[in-house]
């Protein structure tokens, strides 16, 4: 990867980190309600995979830890934060919330809050792509714990028998809510499970964005070339609890510290510094600029944005004015 791309990725990942940390603060200030699942620690996963794929062209779907996935696909961070604030200008018009970020224009097909629910939806999008003959691929980002749902097995099986263009990305952060993977899952290397369905797979260091890009390029090329599904496991770690209601007390300090030493943002920063492409002062300036953007542009925008209209409470339940509901012939 060239230096310019590395610097851009560093900015994007640092932005994602600061954005999520600001969500935390807004939640504590009660500006954000509901459940909030944050991404710090896992930034290299979506950034690395989507660097190899085509954001805005390929269809992406994920679970409830979804803010950063949308932003990487091209969603305006203001629209994501406004959604968390429950505003009409939120990317889901304030009807979705943190767990249901949607941006169909950028082919971010949504965050879904039933663990494992997106597997069949991703395979279905791949079926549609194949039927329509496009060169897009369907990418499904989920955590390791989703692989213990029946939909994992059912969906991988169908993706394989019909050779559908779908990439399954498993962000293995070692915990399903608060239960460590070795207590919930008989096979801890998730990529090994794909072989049960004859799906090629690989594993990469999910903390090192360059390693992710490299592994994802192989995966994306495989799927886009019409060879069928692929399964990519990324070993990673989330710094915070599963959601805001969970402080992550089930993990040892030593474990958290060990992962913190391999922080995806700092790994890339240090690599650039070691190569003489960046110095501490430049990095701090970048960080300050990001913090200013969030504080001076995004937050004031959300504070000032309008709430959804109560008169529109029942809009978007069903299609509006559909002639076939009335049985009108075309």
């Amino acid at each position, binding site marked *: 990867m060239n230096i310019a791309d590395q610097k851009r990725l560093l900015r994007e990942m640092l932005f994602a980190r600061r954005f999520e940390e600001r969500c935390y603060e807004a939640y504590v200030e009660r500006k954000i309600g509901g459940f909030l699942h944050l991404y710090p620690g896992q930034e290299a996963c979506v950034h690395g995979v989507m660097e190899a794929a085509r954001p805005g062209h390929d269809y992406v779907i994920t679970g409830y830890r979804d803010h950063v996935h949308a932003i990487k696909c091209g969603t305006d961070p203001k629209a994501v934060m406004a959604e968390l604030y429950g505003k009409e200008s939120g990317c889901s018009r304030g009807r*979705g919330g943190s767990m249901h970020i949607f941006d169909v224009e950028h082919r971010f097909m949504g965050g879904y809050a039933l663990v494992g629910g997106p597997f069949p939806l991703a395979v279905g999008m*791949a079926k549609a792509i194949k039927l*329509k003959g496009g060169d897009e691929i369907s990418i499904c980002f989920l955590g390791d714990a989703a692989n213990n749902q029946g939909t994992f097995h059912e969906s991988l099986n*169908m993706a394989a028998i019909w050779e559908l263009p779908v990439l399954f990305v498993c962000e293995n952060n070692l915990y399903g809510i608060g239960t460590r993977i070795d207590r919930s899952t008989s096979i801890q290397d998730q990529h090994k499970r794909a072989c049960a369905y004859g799906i090629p797979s690989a594993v990469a260091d999910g903390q090192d964005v360059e390693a992710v890009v490299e592994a994802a390029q192989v995966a994306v090329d495989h799927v886009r070339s019409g060879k069928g599904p692929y399964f990519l496991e990324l070993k990673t770690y989330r710094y915070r609890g599963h959601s805001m209601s969970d402080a992550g007390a089930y993990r040892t300090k030593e474990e958290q510290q060990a992962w913190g030493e391999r922080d995806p943002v700092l790994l890339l920063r240090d690599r650039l510094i070691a190569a003489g492409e960046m110095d501490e002062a430049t990095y701090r300036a970048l960080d300050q600029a990001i913090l200013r953007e969030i504080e001076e542009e995004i937050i004031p925008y959300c504070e000032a944005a309008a709430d959804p209209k109560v008169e529109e409470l029942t809009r978007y339940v069903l299609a509006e004015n559909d002639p076939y509901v009335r049985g009108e012939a075309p």
Partner: protein
Amino acid sequence: MAEMMYWEAIRRAHDEEMSRDPLVICMGEDIGIAGGTYKATQGLYDKFGPERVIDTPISENSFTGLGIGASFLGVRPIIEIMSVNFAWLATDQIFNSAAKVRYMSGGQLEAPVVIRSPGGSAHQLGAQHSARMEKVFMGIAGLRVVTPSNPRQAYGLLKSAVRCNDPVFIYEHELMYNMKGEVPDEELFHPLEGSEVVRSGRDITLFGYNISVHWALQAAEILSRQHGIEAEVVDLYTLSPLDREGIRASVSRTHRALIAEEAEPAVGVGSEVMAIINETCFFELDAPPLRVSSANVPQPYAHNLEKAAIPNAQDIVRAVVQSFGR
């Protein structure tokens, strides 16, 4: 006007819609090479090929979810779930994905899928193959539920459901696939909302849907012939949203009501129609509304027990005659 069977009417709707639009596909267990358990997709595999007529693994939740995901990108899947008992397994994807995606995306995404599935008691199929689940589906916002009582509706409702932009659940009945009826030669797009007065009468309204429309019609004949009671029969072919205005209008004419349903009584079509009557025309009533439902049991196997569990026309007649004090 041709006479055809219920399954033939469903098959015709598939064939026409798939011939018209290459993005209409159908999928389900044994629907392709085998032509479907109830023959509703017979011959389509040879005509449209395996990419569009898909024999699925026995994975109801995920193949339904697959259809829903495909619909996000403009494909129009007609999903057959072999028995409504198996549709329980797919309720996660139907309720959590199809029914909610328009709303939770703020109107950006829609899931124009059709899910067809037969329920009901057939011939001693036992507890896990005889369930009626319409009560569950009709309670979910964002999902349309229709239920054809004859071949014309089976054809026309499926035609409209395929083209409608909402997810539509079509509740069929295992005992009705061989029922004959007239279907127009020209294309028919049946409304997905409403109800139909299938027999006029002034003394009481008998509400039915799907198979219970036929029990109500038989009961109306007996009531007229033997008891001098003229019953109006209303076919509730739409279970969600129920036709509030149609229900109100009929009860306002007859001042009495009975709802016939094959399902167990609790939290069902009968209780919901009674609530609508209460809300819209309570003061028009001459007597408390009645319902005739199945016994509150998992469906038994033994022939005599099964027969005793399921209501029929005689049960409707008895309830009506009693309420008239005759």
